[in-house]
């Protein structure tokens, strides 16, 4: 067992904050690293120490394991937390940390190499006797091999990048005639996105749900599952809303999925937090999809319903402590929902919307957790993913959690840039979502339908008057701060009379 005095957080945004908060609560000093685009970022101002990595491009900063380890040495950090994305699933980096005598807070490189590769993980799943979607276990060598495998398992099928994620290099194929073109497109997209054109092929499950199991394993051979998350609300294969528990997972299914996930992880000597993703079909049969060998974006919903702190557990496990928690001690209580707030414009094709945040009014009160990575005045850079914050609502029931999230979204105001806040209101009011009739195609179908948010209209005359008040304002005192301009109008117009 090794005490941590100092942890380097090799990430940015909300997840860097999340990790630093856990460190601070455990009395561990934190080291931030930053690119030139991020000197004024929130994660820098939240750290005890901060070091520059390089230019804005991730490839010259947050992906530079060598520079990060150099900082770790200079700052005498005991360990590195990679967050998600960037170097979090990079086995070479995990190994380099080990070589440098710095603890990598994650699984051993060996387990990461097997379980983090989609094709190797599928082989491991087969060995562990875990049900998986029928299809090729290894990358396809040619179009001909793809045709042969597809015939075996039957159409429709799905082509997927072996190295990939986030929907890149994926193609659904319904007939043999489409396969060759789709194979080439998927492969070249995978090559461009991940540097490897390897693709594999799976039976396409109709209307599947994406449900995943959270695992936590220590270095002493203990591994527990912390329930499931329902992540079926996706756009372009990116999760948009996550929940725990899933409305379709009962105790028995949870136990079966959980035990299968634990078996897989244990078979490869997995340690630390990890997630096993499944597709669940309409008959509630589950199929192994892939494993994420790191902390997930959506870990907070699991924290809310289990009452545990996954990042603190990660830190404890990494420094050699036993889990100290038996499977039967873990209980799921209530319901949690997470919305990923992005700087993008749902009214305009979900285009990214970087720029300066001029206002930020954050929701609070009962059952609300916000993991925010930005502040008013911050200019959201173009160079990284557009996630601003994660909003989580917890309540005794799913219905109450949905209503609570709607209430919190109503309190959330982000000015200066466009965000997807309105999209969440639309989903959370949708009858299908409320009835938990969701699958991975749900959101695309909803977005294809006519929007009508059912909001009670403000009378037009009131809108006119409000606009007039603001206009009057801006003509007279154009350069003062908003607050004082308004106060001035209030006085002039006798608004308080």
């Amino acid at each position: 067992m090794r005490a941590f005095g100092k942890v380097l957080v090799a990430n940015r945004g909300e997840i860097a904050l999340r990790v630093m908060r856990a460190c601070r609560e455990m009395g561990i000093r934190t080291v931030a690293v930053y690119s030139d685009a991020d000197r004024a970022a929130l994660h820098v101002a939240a750290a005890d120490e901060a070091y520059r990595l390089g230019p804005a491009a991730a490839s010259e900063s947050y992906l530079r394991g060598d520079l990060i380890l150099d900082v770790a040495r200079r700052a005498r950090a005991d360990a590195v937390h990679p967050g998600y994305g960037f170097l979090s699933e990079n086995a070479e980096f995990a190994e380099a940390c080990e070589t440098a005598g710095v603890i990598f807070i994650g699984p051993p490189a060996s387990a990461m190499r097997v379980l983090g590769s989609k094709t190797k993980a599928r082989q491991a799943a087969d060995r562990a006797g875990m049900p998986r979607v029928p299809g090729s276990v290894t990358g396809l060598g040619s179009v001909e091999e793809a045709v042969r495998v597809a015939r075996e398992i039957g159409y429709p099928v799905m082509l997927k990048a072996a190295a990939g994620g986030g929907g890149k290099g994926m193609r659904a194929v319904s007939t043999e005639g489409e396969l060759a073109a789709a194979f080439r497109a998927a492969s070249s997209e995978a090559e461009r996105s991940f540097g490897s054109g390897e693709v594999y092929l799976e039976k396409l499950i109709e209307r599947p749900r994406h449900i995943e199991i959270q695992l936590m394993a220590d270095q002493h051979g203990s591994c527990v599952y912390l329930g499931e998350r329902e992540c079926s609300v996706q756009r372009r294969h990116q999760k948009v809303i996550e929940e725990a528990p899933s409305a379709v997972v009962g105790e028995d299914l949870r136990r079966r999925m959980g035990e299968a996930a634990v078996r897989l992880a244990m078979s490869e000597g997995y340690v630390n937090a990890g997630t096993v993703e499944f597709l669940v079909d309409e008959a509630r049969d589950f199929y192994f999809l892939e494993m994420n060998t790191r902390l997930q974006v959506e870990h907070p919903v699991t924290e809310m319903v289990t009452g545990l702190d996954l990042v603190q557990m990660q830190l404890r496990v990494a420094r050699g402590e036993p889990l100290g928690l038996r499977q039967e001690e873990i209980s799921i209580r209530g319901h949690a929902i997470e919305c990923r707030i992005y700087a993008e414009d749902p009214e305009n094709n979900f285009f990214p919307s970087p720029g300066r945040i001029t206002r930020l009014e954050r929701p609070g009160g009962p059952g609300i957790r916000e993991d925010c990575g930005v502040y008013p005045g911050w200019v959201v850079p173009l160079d990284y993913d557009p996630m601003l914050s994660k909003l989580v609502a917890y309540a005794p029931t799913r219905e109450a959690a949905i209503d609570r999230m709607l209430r919190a979204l109503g309190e959330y105001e982000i000015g200066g840039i466009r965000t997807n806040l309105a999209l969440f209101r639309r989903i959370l009011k949708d009858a299908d979502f409320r009835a938990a009739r969701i699958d991975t195609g749900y959101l695309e179908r909803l977005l294809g339908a006519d929007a009508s948010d059912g909001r009670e209209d403000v009378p037009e005359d009131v809108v006119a008057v409000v606009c007039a008040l603001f206009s009057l304002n801006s003509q007279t005192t154009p350069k003062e701060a908003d607050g004082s301009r308004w106060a001035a109008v209030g006085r002039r117009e006798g608004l308080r009379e």
Partner: protein
Amino acid sequence: MACSVDGREIEVDACSVGPGVLSVVVGGRQIRCVLDGDAVVVDGRRVEFSRHDPRSWLGLRGAGVGADGPQAVKAPMPGRVIRVLVAAGQEVEAGEAVVVIEAMKMQNELHSPKTGRVARVGVKVGDAVAVGQVLAVVA
């Protein structure tokens, strides 16, 4: 404060409750109004307004763009051009992808606003573009 709108009198009590935020009470109803650039968010609903004519407000965002004459495809956000899918002189359908811009790790296709012929392409692969920059014009 009494206001007259289209000849009807309404009683409005407005009060600043923070920078850029008004609490407006009309007949007991309380409405929170937030200034965001040239738009006002009234009770959560976004309304663009013109500052220069107090009585004009344009209604909900995204309202009609005239479909006649040459139209520009403009960059809706800063980014980098990663693909140019059309050339000058080419026929395009309304909604057809014209240019792909990468920003914030996302590839974003920009579409032709109308069916017509590409009059001009203003960018090439690798270019950095600013908000509102003309990428192509369809006539």
